[in-house]
């Protein structure tokens, strides 16, 4: 009886010590992504990228000799779930850093929790509100919609176009970009002369476009939005024979858009992160190597077209890994300090230079480029 008890106790001790040892060996990084639901076009490539590259980093020996353990939760783009999962990552899983969430609403909802506990957060969402004003533990990787607006308006300035008509999707993406574009317009001398919207599941935008067509002031049209809406706008635009140049946002910067809009997409200009055309970038562009490697690896691993969103996940993960290496520690506050000192990091999205006053660190020049669709393919507008 006693013997059996001792044996059991020994076994228990052995197992638990093994578990503890094992737990010490991995670096736990949390991820909150919208892998399903209305923002799955963001979260799905993000999660795939994270899983793929965590496995790759581990196969190459991990970070500072430790393996990375990715603990991820799917929010379905619901901010309430994002909050629940953040608490779980902090309290239960005890992660050292969090990547995500995919959308701005979710990010804003969890900021106060990571700030309170002091866990570095690397958001992959678009809005500039996340890092402006700067919060101690909150960083952001993706180019903002404000940058996209600036890039479009720079291009409009080059073509001497000033009177802009907006036709925006009514989803979060369209709304946010519409707001940013209206804010930056005056600094480029751009006048918004029409401001239309459409529901993201609408099947015909002829009414809105007719209104724009009959507005004599309009010189150029911009369509902030993602999903099927912009493709329908583009088709209707051609059917109505509207002659003004049409700009689309980075929300449709994937081959899928050209496929769905078909021949109507010819001549449309799209503001996009460089990864979309990684193979066409000049060799002088510093990030070409990283972007092209990512594009090829993603397309080979998942047999689907690369999108800019997966690139955010690549950058988020590698900035954190890089910081952990430099900090030579898995202490969240030390990782945070190291992240803030990131300089000249070559990511898929651009060169990242972070500082105490800038928690995004991308500039408009490397973060966004202007593309034109010609013969069913992207060409870079110089």
């Amino acid at each position, binding site marked *: 009886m006693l013997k059996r008890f001792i044996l059991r106790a020994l076994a228990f001790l052995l197992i638990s010590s093994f578990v503890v040892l094992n737990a010490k060996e991995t670096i736990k990084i949390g991820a909150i992504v919208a892998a*399903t639901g209305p923002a799955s076009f963001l979260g799905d490539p993000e999660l795939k990228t994270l899983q793929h590259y965590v496995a790759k980093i581990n196969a190459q020996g991990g970070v500072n000799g430790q393996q990375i353990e990715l603990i991820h939760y799917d929010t379905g783009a619901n901010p309430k779930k994002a909050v629940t999962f953040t608490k779980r990552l902090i309290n239960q899983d005890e992660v050292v850093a969090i990547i995500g969430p995919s959308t701005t609403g979710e990010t804003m909802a969890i900021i106060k929790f990571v700030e309170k506990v002091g866990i570095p957060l690397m958001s992959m969402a678009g809005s500039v509100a996340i890092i402006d004003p700067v919060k101690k533990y909150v960083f952001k990787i993706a180019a903002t919609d404000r940058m996209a607006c600036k890039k479009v308006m720079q291009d409009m300035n080059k073509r001497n176009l000033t009177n802009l008509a907006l036709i925006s999707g009514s989803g979060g993406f369209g709304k946010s970009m519409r707001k940013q574009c209206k804010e930056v317009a005056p600094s480029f001398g751009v006048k918004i002369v029409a401001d239309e*919207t*459409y529901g993201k599941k609408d*099947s015909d935008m*002829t009414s809105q476009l007719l209104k724009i067509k*009959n507005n004599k002031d309009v010189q150029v049209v911009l369509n902030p939005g993602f999903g*099927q809406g912009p493709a329908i706008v583009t088709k209707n635009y051609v059917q109505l*024979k509207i002659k003004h140049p049409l700009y689309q946002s980075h929300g449709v910067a994937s081959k*899928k858009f050209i*496929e769905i809009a078909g021949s109507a997409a010819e001549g449309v200009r799209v503001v996009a992160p460089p990864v979309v055309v990684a193979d066409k970038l000049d060799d002088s562009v510093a990030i070409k190597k990283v972007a092209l490697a990512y594009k090829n690896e993603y397309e080979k691993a998942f047999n689907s077209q690369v999108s800019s969103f997966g690139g955010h996940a690549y950058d988020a993960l590698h900035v954190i890994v890089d910081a952990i290496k430099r900090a030579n520690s898995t202490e969240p506050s030390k990782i945070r300090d190291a992240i803030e000192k990131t300089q000249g990091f070559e990511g898929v999205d651009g060169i990242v230079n972070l500082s105490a006053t800038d928690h995004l660190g991308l500039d408009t020049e490397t973060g966004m480029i202007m593309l034109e669709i010609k013969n069913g393919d992207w060409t870079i507008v110089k």
Partner: protein
Amino acid sequence: MIELFGYLLSGVTVGFIYTLVGLGFTVIYNSSGIINFSQGEFVMAGGMSTVFLIYAGLPLGVAFVLAILITSMIGIVLYKLISFSRDSSQISLIILTLGFAIFLRGLAQIIFDKQLHTMPSFVGEGAFEIFETTLSYQALLIMVVASAIVISLYLFFQKTKTGQAMVAASNNVDAAKLMGINIKKILILNFAISAVIASIGGILLTPITSTSYEVGIMLGLKGFCAAIIGGLGTPFGAVAGGLLLGILESLVAGYISSEYKDAVAFVVLLAILFFMPGGIFGNLKSQRV
């Protein structure tokens, strides 16, 4: 004036799309008194399976037929679920259809993917020019097919024995049984017909709007509004409701603001429910509710 014409034409195009979806609600309601909230997902299933069959290398025609068959099988599965349900009160059956819709959406995410898909228009990408606006061939095709379906449904319900048996079954199940009508057969047929109409809608829509696993949510809602506004139970009701909804939306987007466009559907729905609870073409059955 030309503006107004453009808005009306756009409204009619969208209206016929709503009609195609609304018709499916009508057919199932006509025989079972159930509102089938997975109707929008039937539309999605029709479009998505066609697209993926085409990807698999099948010729267009074969893909259409197979997609329609697949969707009608889904309709029959839904009927089987309903007939297995122990609680046969209408409310619980309606909730069952809602659950089935969510299930189909999830299934589509797994079997297909979460991307948008489209297929070439089978009548060509071109458009007729009418005054300063245009009507694409595909939109015209939708109008023709929707009208043909409406007329054949009307003839079916009014002139054929099977059709009349369906109407009888919905008016009074027990009496219909006593008359020797095989209720089970009638209902299976009905769910299949409704799914077939939905899948035709899904196939016709895809070249215009493209399709994805979640395309059914909004289409289902708008189609439901169209059916209720026109009066459930009559194919002409779905046409009237669909067109009214489409034209109103287009006019609001054109003359007031596109911001309020989507609210129109629901405001009209409420107004109809308050003042004409049976819908525009409301018939006897509405009184039963």
